[in-house]
């Protein structure tokens, strides 16, 4: 495959994650291995209980695997301290959540600035500049000073995506990013992700909606803590087309 020549962003090597629940040990991940290369748009699918949330937490450096190896951009994550993982998240990962998680009563700019607030090497002016650039990139150039509660769900998710982009991460992790949105808005968000993919961003999109796999370049399916399918999609459907073909009655 052509990806072999590209830089590996994520390398998982037989990752296991066990949880102690009472006397029982729950195996959420039972040896997951895959490599994600720069510029891929990967959807990770699975039913609830398949371990996809645990995998996402692991990939996001929020959780550490019980065993196995995880390299993010060439850095071994498993043995890192809590503070170093926080630093790693700050510099290399952009999160997009299902429920947007914007700060209430706070403007779009300030929401997008948030990750940079925890990076003391970036000045106030740079921070603002970067936030504005990212908001423009997600099509919210007109709403820079709107507060989070004055925006629609789709707009809030765009702010969240801008926030995920602002630290120029090596990977964007989206957790059911379209789960709370109606069909039309979901496609709008997907269009945005495809645009980012086209610009060379690496994206991992976790979802339980199997329809979404046709819009990504690669699809990984989890079941009971194992990877049961890992396929490359050479015929990526255009979300833009899907959006224009939507029945107009939705409006």
């Amino acid at each position: 495959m052509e990806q072999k020549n590209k830089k590996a962003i994520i390398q998982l090597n037989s990752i296991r994650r066990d949880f102690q629940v009472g006397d029982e040990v729950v195996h959420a991940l039972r040896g997951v291995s895959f490599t994600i290369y720069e510029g891929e748009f990967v959807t990770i699918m699975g039913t609830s209980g398949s371990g996809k949330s645990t995998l996402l937490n692991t990939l996001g450096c929020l959780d550490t695997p019980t065993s196995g190896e995880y390299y993010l951009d060439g850095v071994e994550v498993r043995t890192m301290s809590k503070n170093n993982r926080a630093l790693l998240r700050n510099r290399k990962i952009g999160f997009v959540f299902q429920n947007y998680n914007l700060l209430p009563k706070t403007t779009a700019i300030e929401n997008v600035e948030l990750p940079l607030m925890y990076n003391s090497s970036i000045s106030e002016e740079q921070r603002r500049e970067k936030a504005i650039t990212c908001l423009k990139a997600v099509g919210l150039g007109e709403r820079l000073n709107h507060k989070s509660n004055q925006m629609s769900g789709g707009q809030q998710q765009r702010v969240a995506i801008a926030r995920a982009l602002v630290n120029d991460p090596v990977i964007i992790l989206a957790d059911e990013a379209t789960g709370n949105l109606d069909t039309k808005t979901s496609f709008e968000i997907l269009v945005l992700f495809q645009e980012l993919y086209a610009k060379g961003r690496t994206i991992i999109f976790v979802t339980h909606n199997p329809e979404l796999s046709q819009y990504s370049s690669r699809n990984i399916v989890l079941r009971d803590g194992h990877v049961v399918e890992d396929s490359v999609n050479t015929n990526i459907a255009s979300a833009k087309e899907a959006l224009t073909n939507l029945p107009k009655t939705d409006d």
Partner: protein
Amino acid sequence: MNFRNLLKIALRAIGNNKLRSFLTMLGIIIGVGSVIAMLAIGQGSKQSIQNQISEMGSNMIMINPGNRDKPGGARMSSSDMQTLKNEDYESIQSKCTRYASYFSPIVKSSGQFICGNNNYPSSMTGVSQDYLEISKLSVAEGDMFTYQDIKSSTKVCVIGKTIKDNLFPNGEDPIGKVIRFNKIPFTIVGVLTSKGYNSYGQDQDDVVLAPYTTVQKRVSAITYLNAIYASAKSESVTSQAIAEIEEVIRTNHKLKDGDSSDFSVRSQEELSSMMTSTSDMMTKLLACIAGISLIVGGIGIMNIMYVSVTERTREIGLRMSVGARGIDILSQFLIEAILISVTGGIIGVFIGVGASYVLKFFLHWPIYIQMYSVVLSFLVCTLTGVVFGWYPAKRASELDPIEAIRYE
């Protein structure tokens, strides 16, 4: 993450909840305000007592005959005891000059003063001219009697304003007039400046001063002294002066080392500390009450910070997932708590000072605001913010980002 960013975040959080933040502050405002006002009242009353004592001569040392500390036996009042003699006075006057500066014997005799058809019962105090310095008195009209008058036991006197008003009700000039005390004629040479009543309600103008030798020889026919007053060079050397005086009189009285003294030496310091101890006690009590309200205010902060942490669990989770470390979250909430308590503290200082002046203005209470009470209550309220903000902030910083971000 730098401090400025943290400050910004904390300010925003307070701004987002203005009413709640203000209500939280209210506890601190009332606490600090009452600490300052209570201390001002306490210190003010202490100050006014101290002023009254120093008006009476705060360096004053009183040597009385007899020793009340001696246990057992029939006790006599110190005015009946005859252990202090003129020689004691003369020897301490010549030997105890290191720490003490003024010395005056006291010989008292009470009786009726008569002038023309006016009379007034009072007492005559035989003193030396140093007495004016020791008791912080001054002569308003005429002069004090002289050393020569003491040497020759002249029948002259200096009278207080009360005596003047009673014996010369029509406002005649008393200087040079003769008054009779127990049938003995005295020529008035001076009138003392009025001092009014002291804090025990004694009329300080009801005095007649005469040379002590005159009172001894011509009025009472005695050879002993009722007391000796001296004045320490400063308040700080009072105890040294007392020790020196005791030493000299003991030598005079040929007392051996184990013998107890047949006289006692006291200073106003004892009186002053006794008087101020009451108001000190009151100050402490008031400060305690005020301090409790400060603690209650602190608990208010803790309570609200807890609610705030719970309410903002998802925000905390988000901050952590975008790279906030535990210490960043801890600092954020701690700064928020400190900001609330410090702002409350500043407002409290103004309200406390304002309330003190309102009391002074409308109720004419003596008020004295000491800088230390302002600084202290301010520090305490900042500390309150840290102490009571610490626990909720610590809890926030220890949240698991995975759970926090999904918290509903």
